[in-house]
């Protein structure tokens, strides 16, 4: 199975109202601990794992994920180490790497994507690579069967949305709010509209992320038609606050999975 096929398969077989997609920061608090956190996510019901590559200048991230990335780097995380995390987790679930553009382009898009594909990962999200800058990375991902997953924001114009929906692979990642990653008390004002617009633009599954932190949010997203929910900051915070990061993250993911259970 290619990465693209593996992602499609995961969305088709969640057994839940929507696919549960935990985000974890590679190498946070340490490389070994982040493998444990990822495995706890899988046990607790994760369908797809989004794995963050720590970066010096993460422009799309709020303070919690920014600080986790900084700590991971200080603890020695590097590309090889984070790709090892991907390799381990990809044995259980599809892994999508979230990595900023400069790190993808530093060795060359083709070289980076080839290395990523060899770990068994299924896809790539580059939060600062809008459609117009994407052709080189898209070509490399397509050549290796990986999904280059695009982001769609509440501010994305209809023309852009149509073009993004058409070239997307794997799924479309809709951003629920105008803003950076971070927990919020409620989902963004227009999240249902963002999901509906994205669904109208593509045949692919549509996942909602940024700001989802409770089982209630996850359920609301699924009810609005999201095929997947991405939970990031809430889990990174749980990892940072506990002596037992894997246990703490696993518990939160378990609650989210229960929230997304199909009523019988």
């Amino acid at each position, binding site marked *: 199975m290619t990465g693209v096929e593996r992602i499609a398969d995961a969305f088709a077989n969640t057994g839940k109202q929507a696919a549960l997609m935990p985000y974890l920061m590679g190498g946070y608090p340490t490389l070994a601990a982040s493998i444990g956190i990822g495995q706890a996510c899988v046990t607790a019901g994760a369908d797809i794992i989004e794995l963050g590559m720590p970066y010096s200048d993460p422009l*799309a991230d709020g303070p919690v994920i920014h600080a986790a990335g900084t700590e991971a780097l200080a603890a020695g995380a590097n590309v090889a180490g984070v790709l090892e995390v991907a390799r381990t987790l990809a044995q259980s679930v599809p892994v999508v790497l979230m990595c900023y553009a400069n790190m993808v*382009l530093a060795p060359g898009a083709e070289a980076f994507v080839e290395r990523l594909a060899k770990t068994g990962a299924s896809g790539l999200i580059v939060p600062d690579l*809008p459609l117009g800058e994407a052709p080189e990375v898209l070509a490399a991902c397509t050549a290796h069967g990986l999904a280059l997953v695009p982001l769609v924001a509440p*501010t994305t114009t209809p023309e852009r949305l149509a073009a993004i929906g058409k070239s997307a692979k794997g799924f479309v990642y809709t951003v629920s709010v105008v803003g950076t990653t971070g927990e919020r008390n409620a989902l963004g004002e227009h999240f249902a509209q963002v999901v509906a617009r994205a669904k109208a633009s593509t045949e692919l599954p549509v996942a909602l992320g940024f700001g989802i932190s409770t089982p209630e949010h996850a359920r609301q997203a699924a009810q609005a038609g999201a095929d997947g929910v991405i939970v990031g900051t809430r889990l990174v915070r749980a990892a940072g606050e506990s002596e037992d990061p894997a246990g703490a993250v696993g518990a939160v993911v378990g609650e989210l999975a229960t929230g997304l259970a199909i009523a019988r």
Partner: protein
Amino acid sequence: MNVVEHRFGPYGGQFVPETLMRALAELEQAWVKAREDPSYREELEGLLRDFGGRPTPLYKARRLSEKAGRPIYLKREDLNHTGSHKLNNALGQALLARRMGKRRIIAETGAGQHGVATATVCALLDMECVVYMGTEDTRRQRPNVQRMELLGASVKPVDAGAKTLKEATSAAIRDWVTNVESTHYVIGSVVGPAPYPAIVRDLQRVIGDEARAQILEVQGRLPERVIACVGGGSNAIGTFAAFLEDEQVQLIGVEAGGEGIDTPRHGAPLTVGGRVGILHGSRSAVMQDEEGQILQAHSVSAGLDYPGAGPQHAQLRDSGRARYVAVTDLEAIAAFKEMARLEGIIPALETAHALAWTLAQVDGGLDLVCLSGRGDKDLAEVLKPTPDK
């Protein structure tokens, strides 16, 4: 073809979160309309003249010229209101923001000069102003923090990373991602995603246009060399722009050599070369490690303490049209002091880099240096006792 350049050869582009893409397109449209609108141009020119004090003089530095054995002319941006060239850009962008219906302005600042210029125009135009500044810079450029606050701006200290200009810029971009619908980001140099490098260059071009006419008037010929310091590169590109077609005129950009370009502690990505990278939304010369992590720059001058440079500079370097060199902290401080005693002008530490390179040349016929700003803000940093090494 874009009406406003998005790319400069392989450099430039728009490497930003999707959330900002619509705002960048709207900014570009607004800019294209404004620059062709006589009412925008008249208001900008009127304010640059009556509020800012333009045109700034082109001054033949008497004792400097005598010492060098050749005429050295200084384009006196230090006499611009608020004490640097930064006002040219801040005024133009704030007027543009008002046309776009945006009343909240954010900016990043290193030396504090761009922050002060932005706070000043926000006071003038009655707009809300938030300035991001690294905590290392709030310390070493204290007078400018006080000025911004007096002018009614809110200065947000940024404590991440090296606590300098790179982190302040990242924080400003994150604010923009969050508040893009109400807010215009007045970027302070020819960096950032398109259309910023082109807009800021066009707004700073007034420096070069004036200087070229002035030197022709007093000397009847073009300079042999045009010299400017490069942080992000706005005073340099603004000066160079008017001379690009004059092929006989050498264009020299002076970067921060810090503790030496053979050490990692400098801010000279154009001079050092190395792999191309992406920083703050555009592709250009960037200080980075093997894996693409952006490195921390170092310079005694907060305005040059930045690991990137504008994309058009990278193109001018590659084509050979401009040349980039570096001057160390110690050389800049020496030039700062020498300038004060020789000419009665205290330059900004940023500018002192351009002066240091110029003073070190033994050859040449006619030099024109962009005196990008005044150095009152730098007294504490230059006069502090040197720590024992």
